[in-house]
């Protein structure tokens, strides 16, 4: 019989620092940004600002109400952190049960979030100009990267795609950072692939060190195609998938990726949510 001695201190690994935790937060701001999106600012005890990297996410425990009883936590990209150490911001679209319940939270109430989770974006120290391509609420994921780039003095081109000018939220993305913004809309047809394609091709050709995208599979796949002549450009995409644990444990959030000509499943919560764009495979939503 193999009876592990549970009290042998020599057997124990040094307990790892606990990087991920459930944080009880106070809602310090919560308001509509427009008809579809809401801004949420939370205050935690812990120093989430320095623990969180651009592109990472938290799992939010949306409140239970009489009408809405979400069971799982909901993954949300960090839209911003600071200035205080415990401050973390989210920007979200009201969709189903969980986000509708979330929208009922009043300032002053409290809620729990688990994180920080996942791998964020990589901004090379040497980068001088980068391109961001965001659609819809995908901009929330991008905002910390905008800030990081601006702080590092990296020039920013931004392509923002939205249903209509009212949905575009360029100010919410940039938060006063300098950038060249190209906004395209469904409402005037400018967001159609054949009209975006030449614009993107030009931006890539104009000497860009990296491209980051989030919020549109259509745009991501277009970008991946347009990047073929530019192997030197770093290209990353932030993806979504239905999640349970958010920590790489349950294997619910997998998607196929192409690596060296072979397809393999990766966990969006763990290997992602940011992946090399060139490894992305289209057509998998879960």
């Amino acid at each position, binding site marked *: 019989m*193999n009876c*592990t001695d549970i*009290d042998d201190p020599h057997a124990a*690994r040094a307990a790892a620092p606990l*990087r991920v935790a459930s944080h009880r937060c106070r809602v310090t701001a919560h308001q509509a940004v427009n008809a579809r999106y809401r801004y949420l600012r939370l205050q935690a005890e812990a120093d989430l600002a320095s623990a969180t990297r651009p592109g990472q996410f938290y799992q939010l*425990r949306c409140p239970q109400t009489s009408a809405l009883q979400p069971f799982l*936590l909901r993954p949300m990209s960090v839209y911003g952190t600071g200035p205080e150490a415990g401050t973390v911001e989210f920007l979200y679209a009201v969709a189903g049960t969980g986000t509708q319940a979330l929208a009922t939270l009043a300032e002053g109430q409290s809620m*729990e979030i*688990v994180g920080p989770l996942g791998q964020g974006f990589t901004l090379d120290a040497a980068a001088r100009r980068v391109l961001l391509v965001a659609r819809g609420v995908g901009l929330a994921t991008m905002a910390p990267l905008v800030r990081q780039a601006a702080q590092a003095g990296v020039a920013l081109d931004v392509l923002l795609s939205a249903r209509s000018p009212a949905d575009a939220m360029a100010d919410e993305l940039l938060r006063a950072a300098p950038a060249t913004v190209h906004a395209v809309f469904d409402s005037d047809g400018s967001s159609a692939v054949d009209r975006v394609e030449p614009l993107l091709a030009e931006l890539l050709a104009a000497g860009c060190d990296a491209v980051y995208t989030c919020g549109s599979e259509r745009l991501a796949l277009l970008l991946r195609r347009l990047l073929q002549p530019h192997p030197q450009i770093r290209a990353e995409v932030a993806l979504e998938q239905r999640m349970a644990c958010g920590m*790489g444990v349950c294997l619910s959030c997998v998607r196929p990726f192409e690596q060296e000509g072979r397809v393999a499943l990766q966990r969006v919560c763990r290997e992602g949510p940011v992946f090399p764009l060139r490894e992305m495979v289209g057509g998998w939503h879960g």
Partner: protein
Amino acid sequence: MADLSVRIGSLALRNPVMPASGCFAVEYQEALDLGALGALVIKSVTPKTRVGNPTPRVAEVQGGLLNSIGIPSKGLDAFVRDVLPAYPGFGTPVVVSLSADTVAEFAAAVQVLSRPGVAAIEANISCPNLEADGLAFAMQARSTHDAIAAMRRATPLPLWAKLTPNAGDVAAIARAAEAAGADAVVMGNTALGMAIDVHTRRPRLGNGMGGLSGPALKPVTLRMTYQCARAVRIPVIGCGGIASAEDAVEYLLAGATAVQVGTASFLDPGAMRRIVDGLHDYCAAQGVARVAELTGAVEMEGEEQRNWRAQAAAWA
């Protein structure tokens, strides 16, 4: 502080709280001191390589979760080489969970897995996500006996049989596992369920059906834990919907010697630590010196119920 230690056969655990297979991996060391748990139960491994089921693999329902992960596995060699080494070394017994398609496969695999660093083997003879509408070894006493007996012959390690709540008569199946030489039964796995999106008219899981876990499952697995504990002399490990120390105590009172926590960790990766802390609080509040005293301590009938039964015949 109360003594939380328990014994599962020859295996001593510092406390009765351990993760449920598939709801735990070494990644939780980022959220939890793995040295503070009773045991570490790893996600089931299968001898054959499996990709797992199509997404979506999870869907929430009221009070619970449906999953159809489908036990992705890179096989035994990859498991022993790439997965297993991360688990020993926390000072906590490591339990390997094994699933397989045939009795022979089970027996052969158990031999491969009986190696240093492995404290016990949990035979997942009950996973309802596989082929054939969820049929599994643990659906019948006969096939349970066959599988466990073959594994028993193949390993000197403690062997736990993980049963399924889909079975009609779990007591008989627990007895079969005991007779075949299991050192403990785990009661139990998920219950096969389904949910349909009324707009798309498609199942809400990519696989069509999947296993129900979480609080919605608890009344049924708790009852089955009670029934198993009455049926066998080997320890019963309770599992299903445990999210708090009170839930864990319910299982202990019903007859469990230890408990496994699954879905609750997804809602709070620190859930198991909270449960261990809560067991200390409960024992302190109730004057319980050793948590092991709680096992099977439910009092099934109170005075009022006895009076009722004594008098009711006259009332009809």
